[in-house]
């Protein structure tokens, strides 16, 4: 596979953990505690993909109404990361038109939509086909559509989850699309055995059977004080001055690889999030 096919998430450190970024044909999962930047990372990946090539399209399946077009617009217009694309003449209108949003609030709606998508992709010659050149499909969030259906005694939820993932994987392989799935976190007592840090008290939701589904699973947690021993470089409130000379307070978060089919497990990085920016420590220094 060509290296250029790999889609960057917009954050260098996280790309590194993912062997370059989101790989077409693979299902990448980002899960994590609330307010650790899962959706921000999804927005960042959306815009980075859109800006990488003037034909690229992104499909965002929104199940918890987190998608904010206003936010995407602000990110594109104000984040330092997209300066380059703006300079190259990519307009706001063009960028916004290449992002498609589908609002689905239960799993049946998602199923219906995905089948419709497959129909569209199969009949490529159709005029005004809005889905040709879709490079990235994001589902935010997977947990919200499945958690009402998952229980020890309920098999239907599990079977739907596996069916949907299989369909997504087929689409991904056949049309060279990267799939990014956002998952939530649940409490894990006394700690999370897969995490590198013994103080992590949560784990990805959706249960055991889900852990076999994605190719890569990233897990985001808050970087609270004392979380990492012997690490001196963490700044709790990093003040970043952007190009417009506005100071933004950035909060540190940790991203670790919980499992990966082709990369190294157990790797982690600290990234900073705040305002319109998202970057790792290396980028600052």
């Amino acid at each position, binding site marked *: 596979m060509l290296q250029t096919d790999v889609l960057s998430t917009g954050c260098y450190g996280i790309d590194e953990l993912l062997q370059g970024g989101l790989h077409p044909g693979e299902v990448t999962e980002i899960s994590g*505690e*609330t*307010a650790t930047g899962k*959706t921000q990372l999804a*927005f960042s990946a959306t815009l980075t993909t859109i800006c990488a090539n003037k034909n690229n399209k992104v*499909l965002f399946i929104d*199940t*918890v*109404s*987190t*998608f*904010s*077009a*206003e*936010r*995407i*617009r602000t990110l594109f217009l104000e984040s330092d990361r997209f300066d380059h694309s703006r300079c190259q003449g990519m307009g706001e*209108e063009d960028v*916004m*038109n*290449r*992002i*498609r*949003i*589908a*609002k*689905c*609030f*239960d799993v*049946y*709606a998602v*199923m*219906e*939509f995905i*089948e*419709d998508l497959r*129909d569209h992709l199969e009949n490529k010659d159709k005029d005004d086909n*809005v889905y040709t050149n879709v490079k990235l499909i994001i589902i935010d*969030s997977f*947990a*919200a559509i499945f*958690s*009402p*259906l*998952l*229980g*020890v005694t309920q098999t239907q939820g599990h*079977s*739907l989850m596996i*069916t*949907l993932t299989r369909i997504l994987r087929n689409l991904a392989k056949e049309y060279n699309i990267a799939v990014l799935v956002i998952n939530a*976190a649940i*409490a894990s007592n*006394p700690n999370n055995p897969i995490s590198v840090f013994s103080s992590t*008290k949560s784990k990805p*939701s959706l249960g055991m059977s889900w852990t076999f589904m994605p190719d890569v699973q990233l897990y985001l947690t808050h970087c609270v004080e*004392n979380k990492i021993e012997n690490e001196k470089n963490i700044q709790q409130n990093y003040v970043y001055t952007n190009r417009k000379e506005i100071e*933004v307070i950035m909060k540190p978060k940790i991203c670790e690889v919980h499992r990966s089919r082709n990369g190294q497990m157990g790797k982690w990085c600290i990234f900073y999030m*705040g*305002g319109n920016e998202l970057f790792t420590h290396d980028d600052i220094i």
Partner: protein
Amino acid sequence: MSARLVSSLNLRPSTRTKLQKAGFQTVKDLQETTPIELSKEIGISNNEALNILQQIKKNKVTSISASEALQQERKLCPISTSCEAMDQMLGGRGVPVGKITEFCGAPGMGKTQLGMQLCVNVQIPQNLSGPEGEAIFIDTEGSFIAQRAAEIARATINKLNENSVTECDPPMNFDIVMSKIYVSKVHNCDELIALIKVLDEFLQEHPRVKLLVIDSIAFHFRQQFDDMALRTRLLNGLAQDLNKFAQSYELAVVLFNQMTTKFIISGKYNLKDQAALVPALGESWGHQCTNRIVLYWRNEIRCAQLVKSPSLQETTVHYQINSTGVRDYQADSLNSKRRWEELYDI
């Protein structure tokens, strides 16, 4: 569409088995049949067969482009909280429509007051750049006091009248304001779930409803639950329904949540075990709302901190609650906190 598996339809397990046994694999196999044929063939009632076929034929889920989404978002009118700082924190004009916003706070933070204030403010007419809607207040704790709502409504109307230019035409009428707050009291979580299930019909009959308040979501779910997995499932199902309402009827869903004490056992010799006040209902519930605001006291001032939002910066603002409702913080109103402290002996 046609290649969709029958097993992915929203059906009862027994019906699904019957369909599969009769050889219906994909939706395509079902497209040619009529309800009566289907009911005879697999031995289910006509109604059930009709239900299956309706699911196949219903409107498709389609996607829109981000520019269309942007236009839609800009059309929605947020609901002011009457506290400018808080409005700013929430994106400039108040509680967003089409999303779930959760306020968490200890007792006495003014959650219910905020709820009532929003019920009044949602009715601010369009010419005063309000949403001109109606409100539903689902009261689980028995905290909705009409007397207090009336006070807040009067104060808000007076404030609007002061600012309005045409004095002969009052922008809001007190009786109408009170009549457009639909209050429903629920006494246990079964009632709450049942109410949410039938709310669809009510919202169709009342298209002007722009605000749904649940005060509080936690109350009934914090008791009489032995099976915590069931609780999580019920809550998530509830959130899914609320999300659907928020989007399809363009209404703001405002939930109030209680706080709970969480013990953090560090397990390390050099760190002390700690206790922290966190929003109730657990980690998984935290993912369900779009925006989350935590209300707390800091140096005798009421603070509201935005802790979760997909589109806004984490910020903390001050606010106050007085006889007229929720207002911007003014430095001279410190006494309420002291009263609270005496009451709880902190």
